[in-house]
């Protein structure tokens, strides 16, 4: 999966405007990064990449790049 495809997937998972999603985006600045958005990303990483995040790892998600780093399969 290319970086662009991963960014598309993140935007789709968060139901966010793709224009607002790049690797430098700070998650807190997105309206979509609420509890449902967080759970959506956790679920996407589990289902598509087999990555089950710990509570500490969830707390460490600060930017879109942090999510990209988890999308390794």
């Amino acid at each position: 999966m290319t970086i662009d495809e991963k960014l598309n997937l993140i935007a789709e998972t968060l139901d966010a405007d793709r224009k607002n999603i790049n690797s430098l985006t700070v998650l807190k600045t997105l309206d979509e990064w609420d509890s449902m958005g967080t759970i959506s990303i956790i679920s996407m990483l589990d289902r598509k990449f087999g990555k089950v995040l710990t509570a500490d790892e969830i707390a460490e998600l600060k930017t879109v790049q942090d999510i990209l780093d988890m999308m390794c399969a």
Partner: protein
Amino acid sequence: MINSSPFSLNGHNILITGASSGIGAAVAVLAAKNGAVCIINGRDEIRLNGILENLEGEGHIAINMDLSERNGKELVKQAVAVKASINGFVHCAGIEKTLPFRITEMSDLREIMKINLEAYWDIIQEILRRGNHKENLSIVSLGSVAAQYGAAGKTAYSASKGALISLTKSLAAEYANKKIRFNCVCPGYVDTPMLSNIRQLYASESDFSDAIIKKHPLGLGMPEDVAGAVVYLLSDASRWITGSVLTVDGGYGVR
């Protein structure tokens, strides 16, 4: 003393699914303490046998079976083969998924329905067959406040529990002439392995507390808090109660 009480389950054969942990295990422990002979079912054989060893009284049995395979009728057949007939049934087996609706797939809904609703359906249909149950049969399902009040991220789960509530009421109407009772207990959030899975979805204990714990004026419930209501509904003390939804939620509904 307890044996002459209407709250006693002395001599009652009670089938309990989901009994290897959480509310199911607590129901088994309390029912046995009140004189019941428990037929406990669960997926985890080691944990199930651990519960079995700790039940008061004699004659309890464990049937290790995964109910996702549409084998609820087989569970009843095995129970009846050993215990002749059943006085009560509690469906505590259940699965929960916290997922926003937009990413909840039909396969998620079906997975939840298989255990939460279809297994219950199969089991009671077999229990209701002539010869498989005794007089004054009492059946208790486990609903949820998620079905009563709604809960974000729990659409499939709450739909399954809502279906149980509706089913309970219609069955109560259909079987009242036979004195067979159906009731549903709707717990708030209870400190169980299921809740541990939900807790992991929150970034901090503080977030979890704000989202879940603080919504219960009496604090988070324990499995034993729900077991008392279930055992009451199994007993003759509740013989005039059917088709009811008993909320046991630490005040969640009055917040």
